[in-house]
C-alpha cells in the first residue's frame, strides 16, 4: 500500500464496491442478522428508512409544484410583455378571433336596412300605400 492520497480515494472506492456487492448477494437472514447487530431493531430501521423515502418524495412534490408555479408566472409575464395583435376581452371567446362583420349603415334606399319584417315582404305599391296611410 502506498501513501498517495489519490490512491486512497480509489482504494476506498474499490473496497466499497466489493463489500456492497457482497451485501447485495447475501441471503436475507444474514443481512438482517448483521443489521440487527449493527443498527438494533430492524423493524425500526425499516420504518426510519421508509420515513426518509416519504420525506424525499414529499420534498420533491413540493419542489415540482414550486417549479410549475414559477413556469406559469413566467409565461404570464411573457404574454403581458408581448404586443398583442388581438387583445382578448374579459370572458372572450371565438369573437376575439372572428370579430363580427360591421353592418351596413341604414339608408333611405330600398330595401330599408331597418325595415320591419312585414314591410320587407310587401311589394312597392303596397309600401307606397302604407306610407300614405301613415
Amino acid at each position, binding site marked *: 500500500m502506498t501513501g498517495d492520497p489519490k490512491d486512497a*480515494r480509489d482504494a476506498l472506492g474499490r473496497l*466499497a464496491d466489493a463489500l456492497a456487492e*457482497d451485501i447485495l448477494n447475501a441471503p436475507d437472514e444474514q443481512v438482517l442478522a448483521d443489521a440487527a447487530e449493527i443498527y438494533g431493531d430492524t423493524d425500526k430501521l425499516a420504518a426510519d428508512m421508509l420515513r426518509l*423515502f416519504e420525506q424525499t418524495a414529499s420534498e420533491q412534490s413540493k419542489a415540482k409544484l414550486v417549479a410549475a408555479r414559477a413556469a406559469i408566472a413566467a409565461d404570464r409575464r411573457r404574454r403581458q410583455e408581448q404586443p398583442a395583435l388581438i387583445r382578448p376581452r374579459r370572458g372572450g371567446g371565438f369573437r376575439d378571433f372572428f370579430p363580427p362583420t360591421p353592418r351596413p349603415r341604414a339608408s333611405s334606399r330600398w330595401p330599408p336596412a331597418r325595415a320591419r319584417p312585414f314591410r320587407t315582404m310587401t311589394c312597392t305599391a303596397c309600401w307606397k300605400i302604407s306610407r300614405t296611410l301613415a
Partner: protein
Amino acid sequence: LSVTDPAEPVRARAEIASAIRAFTPAQWARLRRVAAHYSIGDLMEAEDLLQEAFRGALDGERKCPVSVDVVRFLAEAMRSVADGELKRTKRRPALVPLPASGDPAAPVPEPMDPALNAEERDEDSRCQRQREQIIGLFTDDPAAEVIVEGLMEGMRGEDLRALTDLDQTAYQSKRRLIRRRIERFLRGPKL
C-alpha cells in the same frame, strides 16, 4: 454493479415508488448497509446518499430496467453518486486547444496551478486517514487485513482467497466479519 442497458424497457416512476413502499425489513436493511459502505471516504453521509438515490429514481433522472431488482437499482444509484463525489475534485491536467501554427497572436493558456486548494487537501487527507483507520481495524486479524488490503487493490475472488490460505467457508465468514466491522466503524449517529 451494472444495470444500464438503453434498449431495455424501464420501470415507471410510480412503479418504483410502489416497489420501495413495499420493501421488506430485509430489503431496507440491505439498502441501508450498502449506503453505509458507499459513505466510505467520509465525503457524503449514508442518509444523503439514500436521499439522492430516491430523488434520482422519483424524478426519472435514473432509469430502472424492468429486469433489475429495485434494491440493486438504488444501490447502483448510490454507487454512482458516491463515485462522483470521490472523483469530483480529482485533479486532471487541463485540456486546452492548440494554437494555430504561425499565429503569433494566439492566446497562450494559463497553466493550471498544480498545488491543491484547501478543500482538495482536506478531502485527500480525510480519504487517506480513513484508509489507514480501516486497515487499522484488522491489526488483530492478519487474514482479514490481507483481504481488506487486497480488496483495496482491486483483487477479487479466488486470487484473494489463495493469498489468505483459508478454505471457502472460512474465507466467506472472514469477509462477513470485515463487512460488519467496517460498517460499525462507518456507522453515523443517525438512523
